[in-house]
Structure formats: structure tokens, C-alpha cells
């Protein structure tokens, strides 16, 4: 979310321009020799069996097969690390859609990556409640700790719905918080080692703050 977009913004923060526009490629004619978008043929597209089975299981849940677009893209991302062109092509073949249709859905969604990224995702929430409690410093610290490690995908993210444990992060899908700045090195080491991130600080272990939460009804 807070990522600078390489195509739009140069590292120094200045707006990059392509002629008179911010949109790259606006002045280049589209390739009229290219074939129009086609639904890839399932017979000639090599799709791994597990991926195909997973997507077909999703399709079966809905009256309209297109409803499985997000689950199918998520399956592609789990398998290949991001929505690779080949992966999207395979999903499109199984779903009988054009790859462009799926890319339109993928680019709409923050969690679907359309560029190569590291396997370990760390989403640091930088929305209001978390930023009031130091989320921006936390994000900076996490970035510093990870450095150039290509195995990581660190992003500032919009509200992750866990303001009660602010400042927090979603580490490979596990909610962790509140994270103190000096816990960051341990957290990143745990992720590198494939261990549970900060077990004591995981949301799933946190009791409710409401006094009634531990009271068993009728007792």
C-alpha cells in the first residue's frame, strides 16, 4: 500500500513523466499485429494437477464459475509466489476466461501480487489507530531489519482490523501485536528460520477485554 510505484515515482520522490503524461506507454501505438486476447486452450496449456483440482473445487461452489476468480488467483499466488503470467494463463485455461480478465481482478486487490515478490509477507498496518501508536516507525524498523532480503515482501498496509493490538503486523497471515521496536530483530529471525512469529504476541492467544468474556452463561 505504501509502496512507491517504480513506474510512477522515482526514488527521490519526484513524479516521473513520460512526455506529457504520468502514464507510461501512453504515446506508443498498441501492437496491432498481436492476436486478440484468447481463452487459453486447456489441452495445450500445461496446468499442474493440484492447481487444476483446487480451482475446479472453487468453481463448483458457485452458480457462476467466474466467482472463483479471486480464489483461483490466490491459489496461483500460493503456488508460484505471485500471480505469474504462466500461472494466470493456467488459471484462465481452467476457468475458460481470458488472462486479461483475471489480471483486471488481480490488480484490484492489494493482496494479489502482479510482480515478483518475496515469499514471506509482512504487512505492517499503517492506518490511523496503529499510526497513533508508532506504526510508521515500526514499518521503517522492519524494512531496515529485512534489508534487501529477496525472501521478504514487506508492505505498509491499510487497516488490518486489529487496532486492539496496535501497532501490529500480519506475518505470513498470522496477526501479531503489539510489536515493540526492539522485538523486530527477533521477529524477522523467527520468520527466516520458519518459526512461529512472536508466539506470545499472537492475536489468537489474546483474551477479550470485556469483563463478560470469561463468564459462562447460566453459571
Amino acid at each position, binding site marked *: 500500500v505504501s509502496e512507491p510505484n517504480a513506474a510512477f515515482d522515482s526514488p527521490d520522490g519526484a513524479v516521473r513523466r513520460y512526455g506529457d503524461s504520468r502514464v507510461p506507454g501512453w504515446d506508443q501505438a498498441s501492437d496491432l499485429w498481436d492476436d486478440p486476447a484468447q481463452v487459453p486452450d486447456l489441452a495445450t496449456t500445461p496446468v499442474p494437477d493440484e492447481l487444476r483440482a483446487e480451482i475446479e473445487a472453487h468453481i463448483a461452489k*458457485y452458480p457462476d464459475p467466474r466467482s472463483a476468480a479471486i480464489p483461483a488467483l490466490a491459489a496461483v499466488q500460493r503456488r508460484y509466489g505471485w500471480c505469474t503470467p504462466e500461472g494466470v494463463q493456467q488459471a484462465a485455461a481452467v476457468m475458460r476466461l481470458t488472462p486479461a480478465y483475471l489480471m483486471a481482478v488481480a490488480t484490484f486487490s492489494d493482496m494479489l501480487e502482479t510482480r515478483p515478490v518475496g515469499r514471506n509477507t509482512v504487512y505492517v498496518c499503517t492506518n490511523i489507530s496503529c499510526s*497513533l501508536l508508532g506504526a510508521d516507525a515500526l514499518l521503517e524498523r522492519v524494512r531496515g531489519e529485512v534489508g534487501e532480503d529477496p525472501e521478504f515482501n514487506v508492505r505498509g498496509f491499510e487497516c488490518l482490523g486489529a487496532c486492539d493490538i496496535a501497532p501490529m503486523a500480519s506475518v505470513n497471515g498470522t496477526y501479531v501485536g503489539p510489536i515493540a521496536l526492539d522485538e523486530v530483530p527477533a521477529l524477522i529471525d523467527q520468520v527466516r528460520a520458519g518459526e512461529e512469529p512472536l508466539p506470545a504476541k499472537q492475536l489468537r492467544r489474546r*483474551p477479550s477485554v*470485556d469483563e463478560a468474556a470469561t463468564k*459462562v452463561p*447460566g453459571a
Partner: protein
Amino acid sequence: MSVKLLLEGIDEPDLRTIEVYRRRGGYRQAPTALAMPREALIEELKASGLRGRGGAGFSMGRKASFLPQGDMDKYLVCNADESEPGTFKDRELMFKNPHGLIEGMIIGAYAAGANRAFIFIRGEYAEVADVLDEAVAEARDAGELGGLELHVHRGAGAYICGEETGLLDALEGKRGNPRLKPPFPANQGLYQGPTLINNVETLMTVPYILRMGAAEYAKIGVENSTGTKVISISGNVQRPGNYEIELGISSREIVYGLAGGPAPGRSVKLWFPGGSSAPVLTADDLDVPYDFDSLAKAGSMLGSGAIIVVDDSNSVVDVCLKLASFYRHESCGKCTPCREGTNWTVKMLERIRDGLATPMDLDIMASVQTRIIGNCLCVLGDAMAMPVGSMIAKFRDEFEQHLEEIALGGPASGLHVEASGIPRALAGTASGDHA
């Protein structure tokens, strides 16, 4: 003694399993409801006065009564795309008591006459979705679902998918752009069929209404705001979290009594009473009763029931910029006033932060907000315009003081806020190389 329903005993170990849920009286209201005539069930829901807990606060019983009856396919969709900044009540409710939601959905589907139901949960809540998946399978194997086909659908991260028509488009496998209304989802919703869409908390409240009776439930709370509400409170308070309250108690009681207020030595500067989309209120408004009508009268709204408290150590310029950049990122780009308005508001706020603006720019920025409100298909733009407009109106002195301080070479704001990434409307234009 205040009444507790949804949060009572929610930390009981293994409540998420069907055995414990049943032992606590679970799955007894659904058969009762299914034995009632549909009209009687809807009348019961209407009589309870239950208003939607997702943000709009529309009567649940009336919403269900709008669905036409007939042979066509009808749908129930549970909106679990809880993405409103500051809101985390549905997360805790679903995570700890998934069967409570499923039972509410069985009853809701019967009220709607639907035989297919979906839970649309935001993709970030992967841990919660796993729990729901397990619970749905458990309920299905135990025969509790009857003829209802219920699936959990995970989103992939887009605030706009919490808007009901954006959610429907996303569930149909498209980009989650909101639709023109009318037709309303009750007539043409999911796959063009009549669709009832309800928030998690609303549906989870339904079994309690049936258990205690609508008349008894309507006695909780105040007129026009009946029942209990789970409040998410966060920001600069000492005990953030979810609290269940009776609607109509004083806001001070929530902010100071339950959540402990700001840290010692600090005071409340402003607070959002209903998620970041609600116009801000100040410390002077803390005695407003916390219910739908009183908050509306105070110039704000109850929204999703998420209170964000900002104390006096924070700059209103930073909070405003953080807020506006969130909406800029989340605008789907379909309607011009929202797409451009959110973008320009962020740019103007950055100029203010950097001291490049004049007080006149504050007027221009305020006028941008009035031009967004009511001019788009959905209320995402309004959701930025209302709080930003209220901050300029109520804290104009501070904006001007900030500009003056920078002009005099004084301290700029303490927290250097970066606006978040590119607008969603532009996403993909630069990466279309492999589409």
C-alpha cells in the same frame, strides 16, 4: 448491571467447536425459527428494532421483508469484509464463536427465503476464515445446515468490497466496483437474484432475539436504538478492545470508563465515534449518548461502532492526511468526484503539511469535500469528505497555526506522515506488460 449477549463467555475454551456451542444452547433457535411462518419471523425481527450493525443502521426486519418471494434463486450474503479503519468487532466474534454466525445465517436465510448463502470475508482475516471453514464443515456434517448451501468466500484486500454492491461484484468474480442503485440488492443483487446482505454482528444477534423474544430484546437500549452493540475502541486509550454496551450509555463511559481514556497527562483531542468515516467529535461531545439518533444529532454517526480516540499529543494535520490517503488508495476510481476528490485532498494536505499552502487553501479544500458528498454511486468519497470537512471546520485554528509555524521556521509536525501508495484506479496501468 448491563446486559451482555454476544461477548458473554466468548472466551470459553473450544466455543468454536460444535459440541461446546450446543452445550451452551446453540442451534436451538434455528429449528424454532424454521418452524415459524416466514412472515411471523420477519415481524419478530421488525419488532425487536434491530438495526444493521455494519454502518448504515437500517432495520434488519424491514430489509428482509423487501425481498420478493417466488421461485427464483435468492441469496443471503454475510458481509464479513470488515475493513473500516478502527473496526475489529466482527473479527473477534467470528473467530471465537463461528457457529453463532452460522446459526444466525440459517435463520437469516429462512427470513430471506434463500437457499444459498455466502460469507464474504476479507482476505487479510485468513486465520478467521480457516476457523469459519472448519465450523461450516462441522455444521454441515452435523446436519444443522439443512438444505442451505453455505460457503466462505475470501476476498483479497479491497476496502470497497465492504460496500454492498461492490461486494456483490467481487463475489461474482469481477473488480469490486459499486453498482448504481436502484435496483437495490433486495430486488437484483447477486447473480441478478434477490439478495439479503447483512453484517456479521447483525446476523449473530438474531438467535439472541429469538431466544429472549423480540419484546424483551427491544427493552434493552433506548428508543430507535435497541439492543446491545459491540464497540471496538482503539487509538490513544489505555485498554483498547471490544466491549459490549447497551446502546444509549454515555460516550464518556465508554472512552474513560471501559477503555481507560488516554494515557495519564493526556487528554482527548478528537474522536471518531463510528469508524474513520464518521465526522469527528471533540472532547466537548463526550457526554453524547452512544446511540444512532443522538450521534446523528451531534453531527456524526454510529457507523460500525468503532471509536478511535486521538489525544492532544497528535497533530490534526497528520491525522487528516493519514485518513485522506487511505480513501485515496481505496477509491475504486469509477466515479470522478471520489477518484479525483480524494486524490486532490491528499495533495492539498501534503502542501499544508509542508507549509506550502495558505489559509485560503483550507477553504478550497473544504469546498472540494462538499462537492464529493452525494455525487457518487457509493459513499466512499463521502466517507472521506465528512471527517475531513469536520476536521477543517472544528480545528481550523490548528491548521492555520501549523502553516504559520512553518512559515516562521518553527517546528513542523512531529510525526512525518507519508501518504500511502498509488490510487487503486491507477493500479495495473504500469504493470500491464504481462496481462
